[in-house]
């Protein structure tokens, strides 16, 4: 949180939805290239990314949060980006159609959750931010990752 009450965000577009994650939890942004499929994984687990020799699980937020696809989304995996985040003791790559680093967003631009009310996204929404890209739903990343985490039999926790 800055002196003006703002918080730094990285926003990701998934289909027609912009989501925000705290910049402090973002480790790296890279291309989605050379991933490995993971057998018996639920649909929201995209696979494993080789990040500097380390395996990082890739999370498909579109599947987990049931976000609508958008015609403007890139058609191929090559064009998609991965935002590598750390939260809840896990390092996870979020797959995005587009990424923007918003930097500090002043407190006057923040509001309570409205757009996401009633959707699958609502339980994971901390707030909404009015930005040039439109309204960005800021995620409670820990909650998202805990919901996505796989138990012993391959099902979501």
């Amino acid at each position, binding site marked *: 949180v800055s002196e003006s009450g703002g918080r730094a965000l990285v926003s990701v577009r998934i289909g027609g939805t912009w989501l925000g994650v705290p910049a402090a939890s973002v480790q790296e942004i890279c291309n989605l290239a*050379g991933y490995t499929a993971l057998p*018996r994984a639920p649909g929201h687990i995209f696979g*494993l990314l080789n990040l500097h020799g*380390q*395996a990082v699980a890739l*999370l498909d937020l579109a599947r987990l949060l049931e976000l609508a696809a958008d015609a403007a989304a890139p058609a191929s995996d090559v064009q998609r980006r991965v935002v590598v985040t750390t939260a809840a003791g896990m390092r*996870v790559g979020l797959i995005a159609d587009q990424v923007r680093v918003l930097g500090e967003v002043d407190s006057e631009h923040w509001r309570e959750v409205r757009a996401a009310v009633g959707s699958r996204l609502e339980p994971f929404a901390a707030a909404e931010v009015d930005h040039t890209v439109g309204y960005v739903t800021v995620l409670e990343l820990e909650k998202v990752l805990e919901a996505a985490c796989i138990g012993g*039999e391959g099902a979501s926790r």
Partner: protein
Amino acid sequence: MKVLWSNVGGHVIAVAAERVEAATDLASAGRDDTVDVAALLGVAVSGGEMRRVLRVRSGGAALLLLVGESVGVADVPAPQPLPELVAGLGITLGVAGVAPLAGAFGYVLDVDRLAQATRRVT
């Protein structure tokens, strides 16, 4: 670490070479101590595809792993555990970890865990 690896339904699996006694043809499979790795991974293998069998050692007993047609040998770094988000799948898959292999990650099988599971079933 030296491993024997095979492509099973699009997934690369590996077994520590020191645990492998022999790589044979399909004729020696079909016994109770055979693990169909394709079924383990939940992938389909076409009926016409040739299969190979790895005879591996677990404790004092042998276990047969039904894998893909081609079997290769490679030196890989020590396996790293599955990432925390998907760690629970390791038990389901009988996987000890992953290692960079054949341009992707290979799933290194936990032979002892598979042997225990097989003995429980049979």
